[in-house]
């Protein structure tokens, strides 16, 4: 007997784009990624307070990460369970990383020993 509580397959949602040509969208996202990368590298060479440099670089990196995941990997349009499957381990790993750095005393960076 067929199960009635199963969700129906939804290939359109799975593919996420219903065969629309997304070339222009992808090129726009890539252009933004290129500009953000340029700003990142420029930030490296600009003399700023260390805390400010770190904050700006991490924020720019997060923007690039989000753009690739949301648009190129289609997580913005895809089934929400996939976002949960990916963001769960990602957030947990960030927490573990912060805990590890705190344990080693490098969360608030003491500066190089050399």
């Amino acid at each position, binding site marked *: 007997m067929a199960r009635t509580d199963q969700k129906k397959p939804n*290939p359109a949602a*799975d593919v996420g784009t219903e065969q629309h040509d997304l070339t222009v969208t992808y090129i726009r996202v890539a252009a933004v990624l290129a500009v953000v*990368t340029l700003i990142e590298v420029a*930030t490296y060479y600009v003399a700023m307070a260390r805390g400010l440099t770190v904050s700006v670089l991490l924020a720019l*990196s997060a923007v690039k990460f989000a753009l690739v995941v949301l648009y190129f990997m289609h997580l913005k349009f895809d089934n929400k369970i996939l976002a949960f499957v*990916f963001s769960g381990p990602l957030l947990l790993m960030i927490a573990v990383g912060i805990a590890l750095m705190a344990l080693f005393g490098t969360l608030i960076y003491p500066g190089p020993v050399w």
Partner: protein
Amino acid sequence: MAQVERAAEHYTSTGVHPSKLLMWLFLGSDCFFFGSLIATYQAYRGQSLVGPHPHEVFDIPYTSISAFVLLMSSLTMALAVNSIRLGKMGATRIWLLLTAMLGSVFVGGQVFEFTTFVHKGLTLGVNLFGTTFYVLTGFHGAHVTVGIIILLSLLFASFLGRLTPRQAMTVEVAGLYWHFVDIVWVVIFTVVYLLPY
């Protein structure tokens, strides 16, 4: 009726294709893998007692170009997925080949970078920086290499007629892996190369 049965075969109860769900689960687990390596690098950041130190070996302009090449390979990969969905096999082949080529440029650049660093005295065991740097970036390079092999396999499969628009999901799943490798480098580039020491 036959279509419904085939669809029930190929889709999980969530409505997500099993290959895609499995790839996302794998990428979630890979977050732990790379997260551990990045966290270890950060835990030992600036703690090497002997050189060479990062500022003595890093070539930021060179690595920036390398990072840009990998970033643009994500664009070509997205265009490959877009093309096969639209049924354009010729364009799919071109984008897959271009993605593999850009990936190869990145890996080649990494080999050159490693060679240069070794000549400057930075080996795997010379200090904490060398160990954590080579393990982290080396594993990433290995992931990119696996990605290139997957892309070339898809390309050959398309010439053999085994990759058609009906197998668009296969290219999409390969694309997820490729994009993940790219976002890992986005993080590594910032954390390892750009953050001040």
